[in-house]
């Protein structure tokens, strides 16, 4: 067949000479560098035009060649795509956060094989999707640079990595010697308990000791004495109309704060049609998070906790509050009256670690009918089963050479035990000591072998934090290192051939009846068989003796020290987590440190700093350097910084545990604060958390920096910022807040027409989506979970102590904390928390001042930040009335185009923690949907725009309008008290529209009078108190024009 020919033109068809030449010369034309006379450009003097051309080109080329090269980090794509994985699309796995005995159901967001964010599991009926700061931060622990990469063995003084097989061989040989002790935290996991039982059976004479760093042994013992059950019941704060807490920080750290916060918030939400909220009394020594949220708060010395409990008991029994006087007496009687009036709807909890005090509290709860209503013995809390005496016995046994082998998992007694030296001495006397901890912590350091366990996000397992509420663990990533799950190690050493995943699967498939049910359980993450609320039979025989014993606890010394847990660090297990270290303490707003909290009275008498005097307060607060005192606590000398905190009982000092970790526990924890565990002591039955054995030298003027993110504590009567009313005033006049707003903006058209009338400029319609957020100041407890969630979601950089000291911290979501009341009267102090983020103002002052329009408004009401347009003039930050804009002062992220520009000394030095966060391991936690900002640009809250975009796309793909379930901001999702509501305010059916409409009496906008038109609205705080405390000190200096304005409610009636 003749070759078929296609042609494009007739010249080609005819194949003319001209075409042939054209075809041959197609690409051979000279470059157009010829001058007019036909000479090549090299021969002719270049024309001016050419000269400019060459100049331009060569300059551009030189610039391109010499320009700053951004370091390239290579990402290698999958060669073979895993079946279920779409790059860029997140997978979610239900699992469980585990730390010590604590277990909270969570859902892990996994992007491209990496877990990057944890959310609460909403299917759980007890945590109800709530999380805490520690849970939010725990995903970073997975990528902790201090995690051990392989088993290790101590030979001589040095520690070498060994293979798992070698470790197993040695350990098996050692275990054969018998009298094995397995030392763990509280284990609530049914499957693990089974594994442990099998292990113990394999080695007769061995035992399992549970040790809780923060023990609730007193509760167990008291319940055994009065109810005959050695359990901790679960509590129902949601059913309580009157809550009395005797030093229990149930919102912050006590027992099960996430669950309790969820419950507490139920009673604190105000329904404006029927405004009733619970009444919360707090009797305590230091200012705790719960105390800060209470309605009525009374302070007493730590050792008087027993007296307060007995006084409350006698007041409830109608005999008046005995043994106390003054305000405290009145407070106790008021609490007793409220409890008596609400029989069966009251709840008293105590944070005391003394058995007798807890017995008295049990008697109180019995008297007010809490047993079986707000206290539920049907599903006990199982997260803290440790018995203090067991640990004492163990330490004595180890030192007595009675322990053949010690296996430690999940606890760190070399740090957490009050007498750590006795423990480590004991370990030395044990022939085989094995640590199964994830890192080279203080305990692991004293052990011969370390077989590091998985992080919980790499593990299989289950937990039963409350009886009947099981929560499942499944791995979300392959183990990063050569580690082995704790249960696997035990199985191996029991001689079992199965691995734990098979064991676990078989166990649950049998229990649930089918593989389908097992899969569903894994998918849901929870298996719940809740029992009906029930009480237990009360036996009051022990009460009389307990009353006497509790009364006898009172000590005569002047000052007493109480040890507490910080909301951020808890018992210190997560101390190497930079997110937690940088989270400001809700009360002191201090980061990266522990310190002694003292009362303003102490400041006045012992330090000569009277913070009720405006000028002295100024001087104290404008520098980060705080007094450093020489203390003698429990006969040992310590040098500790001191922070003056209003609300502290005059003679109470307080210090947090969790700090002062050893060098090897990680670069973030190293060198931060001091260990306060040695301040605890054992009283024969339980561990005491307060001591009267505290002395200090007169202050010699020495100071040390404490990094606070907020230094001024009064809102200075600025009711445009904070609005609060008492419940009674609000009930009398529900329009109080509205009236106050009218007063502020009335002359500019009032609430109705303010948008239009408050400005000279034209206003615009805002159709389509309009994002809005509502924050309820009444249910916000200030815990900071939102802040960490935001950090995790938005890749907010960690700046380290050195930079927080320079007021450079980067949090997009912060919680402002203000005190009011007389600073020298700790009982009068009222605290308010105000979460503060970018308000996404519709008339944003930041937007019009940017010379390059790097920050602008979206059609959906977002105030957007364009990082790569930002040149860093910081004008926007100056002009932001809410001061939420954060500037990248230094290269915190290593994302800068200038290489090697992170300083380790001199001005602008960065702490080790920043470098730790820049490690390629830590960087795995970054959210790939959010740009890591470089040095020199401003950043701030974006309302999680990446989530909004994802939600919008989802709705678009489904061809429907956007619904509330499509989008949740990270802070909203993390909030354990559901204080944050977010959504499309233009959709009348959305939650945000409903919240705003249903609470139109309490709604307000911060700084509404300056007409910036925020898209974040607040709901005013309603306090269940007689009157609001006056805003403190500087009020005296308020100029005439401002007037001595009492808080809103006080002036209105």
């Amino acid at each position, binding site marked *: 067949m003749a070759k078929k020919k296609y042609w494009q033109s007739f010249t080609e068809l005819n194949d003319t000479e001209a075409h042939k030449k054209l075809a041959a010369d197609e690409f051979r034309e000279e470059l157009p560098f010829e001058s007019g006379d036909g000479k090549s450009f090299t021969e002719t003097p270049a024309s001016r035009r050419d000269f400019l051309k060459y100049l331009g080109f060569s300059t551009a080329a030189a610039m391109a060649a010499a320009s*700053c090269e951004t370091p390239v980090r290579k990402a290698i794509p999958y060669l073979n795509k895993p079946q279920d994985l779409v790059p860029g699309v997140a997978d979610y796995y239900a699992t469980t956060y585990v730390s010590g005995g604590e277990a909270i159901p969570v859902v892990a967001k996994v992007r491209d094989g990496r877990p990057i964010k944890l959310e609460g599991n909403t299917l759980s009926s007890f945590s109800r999707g709530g999380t805490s700061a520690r849970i939010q931060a725990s995903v970073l622990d997975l990528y902790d640079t201090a995690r051990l990469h392989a088993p290790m063995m101590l030979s001589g003084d040095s520690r070498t990595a060994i293979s798992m097989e070698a470790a197993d061989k040695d350990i098996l040989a050692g275990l054969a010697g018998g009298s094995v002790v397995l030392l763990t935290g509280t284990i609530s996991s049914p499957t693990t308990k089974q594994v442990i039982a099998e292990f113990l059976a394999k080695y007769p004479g061995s035992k399992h000791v549970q040790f809780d760093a923060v023990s609730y042994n007193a509760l167990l013992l008291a319940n055994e004495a009065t109810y005959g059950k050695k359990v901790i019941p679960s509590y129902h704060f949601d059913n309580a109309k009157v809550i009395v807490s005797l030093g229990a920080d149930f919102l912050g750290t006590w027992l099960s704060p996430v669950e309790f916060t969820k419950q507490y918030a139920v009673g604190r939400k105000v329904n404006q049609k029927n405004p009733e909220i619970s009444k919360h009394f707090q009797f305590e020594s230091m200012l705790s998070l719960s105390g800060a949220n209470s309605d009525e708060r009374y302070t007493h010395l730590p050792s008087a906790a027993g007296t307060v409990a007995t006084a409350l008991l006698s007041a409830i029994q109608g005999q008046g509050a005995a043994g106390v006087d003054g305000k405290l007496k009145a407070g106790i009687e008021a609490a007793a009256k409220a409890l008596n009036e609400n029989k069966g709807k009251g709840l008293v909890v105590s944070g005391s670690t003394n058995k007798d005090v807890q017995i008295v509290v049990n008697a109180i709860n019995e008297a007010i009918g809490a047993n079986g209503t707000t206290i539920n013995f049907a599903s006990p809390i199982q997260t803290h089963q440790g018995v203090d005496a067991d640990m004492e016995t163990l330490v004595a046994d180890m030192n007595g050479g009675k322990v053949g082998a010690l296996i430690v998992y999940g606890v760190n007694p070399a740090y957490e035990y009050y007498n750590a030296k006795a423990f480590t001495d004991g370990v030395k006397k044990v022939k085989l000591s094995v640590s199964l901890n994830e890192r080279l912590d203080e305990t692991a350091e004293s052990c011969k072998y370390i077989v590091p366990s998985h992080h919980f996000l790499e593990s299989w397992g289950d937990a039963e934090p409350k009886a009947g509420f099981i929560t499942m663990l499944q791995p979300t990533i392959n183990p990063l290192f050569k580690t082995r799950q704790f249960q696997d190690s035990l199985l191996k050493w029991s001689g079992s051939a199965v691995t734990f995943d098979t064991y676990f699967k078989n166990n649950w498939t049998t229990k649930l009846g089918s593989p389908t049910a097992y899969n569903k359980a894994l998918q849901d993450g929870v298996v719940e068989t809740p029992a009906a609320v029930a009480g237990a039979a009360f036996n009051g025989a022990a009460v009389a003796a307990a009353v006497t014993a509790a009364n006898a606890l009172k000590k005569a010394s002047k000052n007493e020290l109480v040890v507490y847990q910080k909301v951020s660090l808890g018992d210190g297990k997560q101390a190497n987590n930079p997110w937690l270290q940088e989270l400001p303490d809700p009360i002191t707003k201090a980061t990266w440190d522990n310190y002694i909290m003292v009362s303003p009275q102490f400041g006045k008498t012992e330090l000569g700093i009277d913070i009720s005097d405006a*000028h002295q307060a*100024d*001087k104290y*607060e*404008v*520098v*980060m350097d705080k007094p450093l005192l020489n203390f003698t606590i429990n006969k040992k000398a310590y040098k500790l910084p001191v922070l003056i905190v209003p609300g502290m009982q005059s003679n109470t000092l307080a210090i947090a545990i969790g700090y002062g970790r050893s060098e090897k526990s990680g670069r973030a924890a190293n060198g931060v604060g001091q260990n306060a565990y040695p301040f605890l002591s054992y009283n024969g039955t339980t561990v005491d958390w307060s001591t009267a054995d505290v002395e200090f030298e007169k202050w010699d003027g020495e100071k040390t920096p404490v990094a606070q993110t*907020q230094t*001024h504590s*009064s809102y200075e009567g*600025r009711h445009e*910022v904070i609005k609060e009313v008492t419940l009674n005033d609000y009930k009398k006049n529900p329009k109080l807040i509205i009236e106050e707003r009218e007063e502020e903006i009335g002359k500019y058209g009032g609430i109705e027409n303010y948008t239009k009338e408050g400005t000279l400029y034209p206003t615009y319609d805002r159709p389509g989506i309009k994002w809005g957020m509502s924050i309820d100041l009444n249910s916000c407890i200030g815990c900071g979970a939102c802040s960490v969630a935001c950090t995790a979601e938005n890749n907010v950089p960690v700046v380290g102590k050195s930079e927080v000291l*320079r*007021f*450079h*911290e980067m949090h997009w979501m912060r919680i*402002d*904390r*203000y005190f009011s009341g007389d600073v020298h009267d700790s009982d009068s102090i009222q605290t308010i928390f105000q979460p*503060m983020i970018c308000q996404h103002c519709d008339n944003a*002052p930041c937007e019009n*001042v*940017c*010379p*390059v*329009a790097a920050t602008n408004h979206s059609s959906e009401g977002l105030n957007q930040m364009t990082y790569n*347009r*930002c*040149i*860093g*003039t*910081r*004008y926007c*930050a*100056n*002009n932001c*009335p809410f*001061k939420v*804009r*954060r*500037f*990248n*002062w230094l290269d915190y992220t290593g994302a800068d185009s200038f290489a090697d*520009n992170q300083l380790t000394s001199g*001005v*602008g030095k960065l702490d080790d923690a920043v470098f730790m966060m820049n490690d390629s391991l830590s960087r795995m936690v970054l959210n790939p949907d959010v740009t890591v900002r470089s*040095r*020199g*640009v*401003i950043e701030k809250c974006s309302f999680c725009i990446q989530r909004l975009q994802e939600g919008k796309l989802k709705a678009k793909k489904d061809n429907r309008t956007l619904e509330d379930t499509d989008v949740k901001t990270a802070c909203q999702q993390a909030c354990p008290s559901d204080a944050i509501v977010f959504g499309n305010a233009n959709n009348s059916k959305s939650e945000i529209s409903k919240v705003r409409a249903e609470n139109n009496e309490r709604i307000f906008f*911060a*700084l509404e009078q*300056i007409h*910036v038109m925020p898209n974040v609205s607040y709901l005013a705080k309603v306090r269940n108190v007689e009157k609001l405390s006056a805003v403190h000190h500087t009020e005296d*200096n308020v*100029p*005439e*024009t*401002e007037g001595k304005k009492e808080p809103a409610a006080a002036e209105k009636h």
Partner: protein
Amino acid sequence: MALLKYESNVRPPLVEGKKDYHQVTEDIVRPIEGPPSKLWWIGFLVSVALLLFGVYSVYREVTYGVGEWNLNKTIGWGWDITNFVWWVGIGHAGTLISAILLLFRQGWRTGVNRAAEAMTIFAVMCAGQFPIWHMGRVWMAFFVLPYPNTRGPLWVNFNSPLLWDVFAISTYFTVSLLFWYSGLIPDLATVRDRAKLKWRKYMYGLLSFGWTGSTKHWQRHESLSLVLAGLSTPLVLSVHTVVSFDFATSIVPGWHTTIFPPYFVAGAIFSGFAMVQTLLLVTRKVLKLEEYITIEHIEVMNKVIVLTGSIVGIAYLTELFIAWYGMNKYESWAFMHNRLDLFSPYGWSYYLMMGCNVLSPQIFWFRKLRRNIGLTFFMSILVNIGMWFERFVIIVTSVYRDYLPSSWSTYYSPSIYEVGFYLGTFGLFFTCYFLFSKFFPVIALAEIKHILKKSGEDFKPAMEPIEEESAETFYKEVSHHH
């Protein structure tokens, strides 16, 4: 004959020492032609050293970040913008002297205008450093220029006062530079004509643009001067007005004030004259120009200082009054607490400002004190310290405690590199000034010759015979000659 009034009874001569034209040229060009003095070298090297430290400080800031300074999340601007406004303010006197005083026919200005204009240009150069280098990403600074780009419709934000600054400062700099240089051309030609060395002749020949001194040249030169004077006059008022908008258009209590434009302009002239005093008192001494820059000049400028100082004082009091009268609690807080309260963290800076700017210049109501050179020098320094603190007070004490007490800042004081940058601009300023005084005539040679005869004192002897003539004889003689 009492008909002739050639002699001013009021005005003293503007140039002392009975100079003739040649001597003027000699006096003014001499420093250019000889080798620089030891004093000059010391001054120059110190300036260069300061400049180099400034360059290092800026290098640190650009490489490691603005975190090399002690600004923070609440105080976004501190020494950087304080220094910027301060230098811009100083850059006002030159143009005021050359333009406005030219239009007002103030003959005395010729003795000082050249140096004042040079000072203006150098001060604006220094001022310009701050808004540029204070940026977080200075390598992207060109984003502030409205140039056609490939980023779609992305354009600068014409609503932003910072952008107005870009235009205001660059226009002001350009016009001032042209004005200064066009005035220099005839003088450079004089230097060229006197030059004996070949390279000197060549360089000054280039610089003088082929000036021949023809009538046409002079005519054009005069017209250009008038046109540029007309152009710069509004600029004197507009530049600092625009700078004040950086603050006035914001919502920060203490910045958001409608009084700022006139207040800033008065303050700028105030500090500009003080700086001119400082420089000229040194220059006249070092270059031995006491006969050109006379005590009369100094007194006149002291009068301007007391006037503008008092205007500034009234502005301060007005601000305070409005803060009280306005019933805006946030504004009143900024004034009553952050400033007026001496024992508040920055209270001292407010009183330092008040003392230096409002109280101390009042001594110039006394003629004797106005004519005291030592005192004038001291006062000129004091005024500039005061004016620096004025900007510091406005910027820092407003923003460090504004709306939300939660964000109230800790005490801000500069880091070594922040101070270094400021010192570096001093280095830049004085390096330029020393080079200027070495290579350019520091007094407007051509212009001063215009006013050489303004005063009758020198011509009295020559006039005496005529004085004795009768009017008729005189008239006859005159008409005979012409």
